[in-house]
Structure formats: structure tokens, C-alpha cells
């Protein structure tokens, strides 16, 4: 059993999924699902189709160069079965996956960070310039001129008068 990558979107193809197309020059194209297969038949270039990994890598959206990718490289040499090696490999796979996904998330947030700062700056500017869209022009003046007035307690005298 071997897990292969889809030619179009670069996702892993598990056994029992997808179609492989053999061209007459003996080049084999594997597709994970009919969506990728149909796009291929339409002669679309995966480097131009936004949702594919090829596009994201080509446009710097996703992390491409990292040491964690070297663990996944295809090796044509079969390894002799060793129980300990298998156990260690399975543990390592999980750990490497975790590391890789955190690194990928970091890459994306780093890419988005300057934009967030830009957005914050423009928001502050907007508040300064266009405060009239949020508050009425007159209300701002009145707020600052609020004065505290002391009220004397003459109520008790008035109440007695009314009662009579």
C-alpha cells in the first residue's frame, strides 16, 4: 500500500480513492477525486487554480521549505521490518505532523501580520477624521461642559406645608 499525491491538488490519495490516468507517453497522472480529474481534462494549470497546493506554494501563501518535509520524501529502497523501528516511526510521524502544522500556521500568521497592523492604523485614522459619523457634532461639546450643581435639602419644610 502506498499513499500518493494528487497531481492536481497535491492532497494524499488513500487506497480505493480516485482515478489514475495513463497518457500514451506512459506518464501516470493520479487524481484524488473527480473534481481534480475534471479540471485536468479541462486542461487547467494547477499553478493557476487558487485552491490547489501548487498555487499556494507558487505564490508564497504556504510554507514550502522546511526540514519537516524531508521526512516525507519518497524512498524507493524497502526497509527490513523491525518492530522497534516501526514503533518509533509511528510516534515520530505524529510528532512531526504537529511540528509541521504549527510551523505552517506561524508562516501564515506572519504573512498576515503586517496587514493587521495596517488595518489597525487605518481604523484609528478613520476615528480621528470621521468621528462625526459615530457621534453627533453638537453632543461632543455638551459632554465637556457638564457642571455639578449642589441641591439644598429644603424639602422637609415644603412637605409639612402641603400636608396641612
Amino acid at each position, binding site marked *: *500500500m502506498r499513499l500518493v499525491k494528487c497531481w492536481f491538488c497535491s492532497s494524499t490519495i488513500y*487506497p*480505493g*480513492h*480516485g*482515478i*489514475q*490516468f*495513463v*497518457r*500514451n507517453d*506512459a506518464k*501516470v497522472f493520479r487524481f484524488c477525486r473527480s473534481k481534480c480529474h*475534471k479540471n485536468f*481534462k*479541462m*486542461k487547467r494549470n494547477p499553478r493557476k487554480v487558487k485552491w490547489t497546493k501548487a498555487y499556494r506554494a507558487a505564490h508564497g501563501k504556504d510554507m514550502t521549505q522546511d526540514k519537516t518535509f524531508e521526512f516525507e520524501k519518497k524512498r524507493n529502497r524497502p526497509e527490513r521490518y523491525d518492530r522497534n523501528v516501526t514503533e518509533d516511526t509511528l510516534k515520530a510521524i505524529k510528532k512531526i505532523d504537529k511540528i509541521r502544522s504549527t510551523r505552517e500556521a506561524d508562516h501564515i500568521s506572519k504573512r498576515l501580520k503586517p496587514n493587521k497592523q495596517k488595518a489597525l492604523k487605518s481604523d484609528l485614522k478613520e476615528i480621528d477624521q470621521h468621528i462625526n459619523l459615530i457621534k453627533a457634532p453638537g453632543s461632543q461639546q455638551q459632554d465637556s461642559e457638564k457642571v455639578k450643581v449642589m441641591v439644598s435639602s429644603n424639602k422637609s419644610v415644603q412637605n409639612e406645608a402641603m400636608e396641612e
Partner: protein
Amino acid sequence: MAAALASRLTKGRSLLGGLTNAFSGLVSSSSGSILSQQQRTFIQMGTRLKVVDNSGAKEVMCIQSLRGKKGARLGDIVICSVKESATKVDVKKGKDAIQKGKVKKGSVVYGVVVRAAMQKGRVDGSQVRFDDNAVVILGIKEKKTDEKGKEKKQNYKGGFNQPLGTRVFGPVPHEMRLKKQLKILSLAQHLV
């Protein structure tokens, strides 16, 4: 690629003619779909196949599929009529040599389907499909009665194992091993 697409649109459609095939409904309904994506079906009577060996024939038309009610698939044997064969000009000397005079236009031959545009399921669950329909010629079908008027019996139930040509072009699938076409596998340039 453009040529392949063009050929697909002109050659790939199965000949319906006077056939009241159960599959005809499916084929006609999907042929009018958007993007003109073809529903690839079986190799049946009238299907034109490319010949990928050096037996002398170039194009062949299926007249009978020896397996399957609906038609032949990848790896099945078909009876074909040769529509186009190599001209005298094409005959070369040496390794490339076309087997001179073996298969002529109009002769009836047996062939095994080595490439089919219709996807075939493999034991590991995957599906394979090729770009075209191609056949390797196995033997010439002899006439039922010979010169003396006796009926000849041609044995094909046991299966043909030896191709007529000495070279096979293009990729060949592993399905040939299951079909006991080991000679074709050994002659193949690429195994898929």
C-alpha cells in the same frame, strides 16, 4: 494534447447504428452534457482500435467481443476486422521491421485490448484509464471452411498467448499478467 482532445471528440464515440444496446441510453444522455465530457464505455461492435504492434495492421474495427455481453474491457480479447494496414512504404528493415504481408486490410484477426479509455478497477481499489483504445493482434482468424470444403475448428477457448508482432508500443498495463499475455508484458516498453 490538443490533438488528443480532437481525436477524442471524433473517434471516441461508440457507434450506435442499429444497436439496441442497454448502454445506448446512458451514452446518449451524457453526450449532451456541458463541457462535452464523454462517458467512456465498452469496446463493442464497430469500435475502432489502434494497433500498437508491428504486425502490419494500423487500425482495426471490433466486430465481436469474446467476453462480456456489453462489450470488451481492458485485457479482453476481441475479434476485429483490419481497416487500415501498413503500406509497402512503411515496411522497414531491421528491429523496427513490420512483419511483411502478415496482416492485410480486410482480414479478420483476434486481438487483446491493451489500452482502454474506459476505467478499469484494480484489486487495490484504484481505477486506471488510458488515453485511447489500443489492441495487440494475437492471431488471424481462418475461414470456417478450407479449400476442401471441410469445416475448420479454430481453437480460441484456450486463449491466445502469442502476439503476431515482435514489438509493442506505448504503455501496457499489469492486467496482461492476469490474462496470461506474458509475451506482451516482456515486449512492452513501459509497464503501468
